[in-house]
């Protein structure tokens, strides 16, 4: 059984890295004209959630990571609707938990390439589409205009279409991450684990907050 403190530290560090990527790397990808949403979900969100599931073998951890990443997103108040983005990130964590709920924690279900690729496609596509729909619902509600179901329904084909890229990248990311399956996080000594986790988490939070202060 994983030590609770070690697990909480893991949630914070992985969530912080995810949040850092959403706040700092995502906007840069947009600036150079890349499809940042699909790339962020399939590479960072799914990559980090599968990595954490593989190392820590705990259900609920990925939802926690989503909450940490979403909270960090609140400290980077750029974009159209910060609260909506934060909730969408947390929603991706929740969707991942639901998709992976029936999978064995030791990942013995994912021994074949077909299963790994399939889980990559499903996880990445559903998290991307789910996160996107969450934003499309929340943004009008938070803004003055109000939510119209018609707006969302008209855009559903676009959302489903854009998810294809995320699904295809997910098909590569998940099998790639699972190549590291034999690494065991438990062998890392506490005196190395906690300082490393604290340093990485602090770096992510300080970088995002300082970036906000400088740009504002």
């Amino acid at each position, binding site marked *: 059984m994983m030590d609770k403190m070690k697990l909480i530290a893991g949630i914070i560090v992985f969530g912080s890295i995810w949040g850092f990527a959403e706040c700092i790397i995502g906007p840069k990808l947009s600036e150079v004209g890349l499809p940042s949403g699909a790339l962020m979900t399939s590479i960072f969100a799914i990559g980090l959630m599968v990595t954490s599931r593989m190392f820590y073998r705990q259900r609920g951890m990925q939802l926690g990571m989503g909450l940490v990443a979403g909270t960090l997103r609140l400290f980077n108040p750029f*974009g*159209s*609707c910060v609260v*909506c983005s934060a909730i969408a990130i947390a929603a991706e964590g929740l969707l991942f938990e639901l998709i992976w709920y*029936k*999978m064995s924690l030791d990942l013995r*279900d994912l021994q*074949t390439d*077909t*299963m790994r*690729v*399939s*889980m990559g*496609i*499903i996880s990445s*596509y*559903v998290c991307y589409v789910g996160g996107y729909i969450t*934003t*499309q619902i929340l*943004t*009008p509600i*938070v*803004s*003055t*205009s*109000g939510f*119209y179901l*018609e*707006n969302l329904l*008209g*855009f559903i*084909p*676009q959302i*489903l*279409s854009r*998810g*294809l890229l995320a*699904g*295809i990248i997910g*098909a590569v990311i998940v099998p790639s991450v699972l190549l590291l399956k034999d690494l065991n996080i438990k062998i890392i000594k506490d005196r190395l684990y906690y300082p490393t986790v604290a340093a990485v988490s602090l770096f992510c939070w300080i970088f995002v907050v300082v970036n906000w202060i400088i740009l504002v």
Partner: protein
Amino acid sequence: MSLSKERIIPIIAICVLLIGSFSSIYVYALNSNFESNEDVIVINNEEYLLEYLFSNIIIRNLYSINASGIALDNIITSINVNCPSCNSYKIIGKDGYSQIVTWENMQNGVLTNEKKVVFSDLPKAFNVKDVVEIEVIHDG
């Protein structure tokens, strides 16, 4: 007979890929339909040349978001829509993306040279690019 995970998960993955692929084909087909009418915009079921709109309607500068273009409320008033403030307005893009906004929002929005509608009082998610139609929705 129950399906094992090894069988059902690849089937779901294939379905997901098919949904994404068919949606992409649908969106591509939708975009192609609009390609021949680049210079025209449909407003309240009537076609207007963009050139006509840009030469006849006041340009508005939205300094807060660094954008300028023809004022959306002026477009509506210039085409004689009854009681503009009584209606909602649906802005529809070439890719099927649409947003319904209020008259107050229209008073803070512009149609830019690039056929993009932007609002100074709404989040970016309400921006619609490659606008092909502005539909007047008669409320109540």
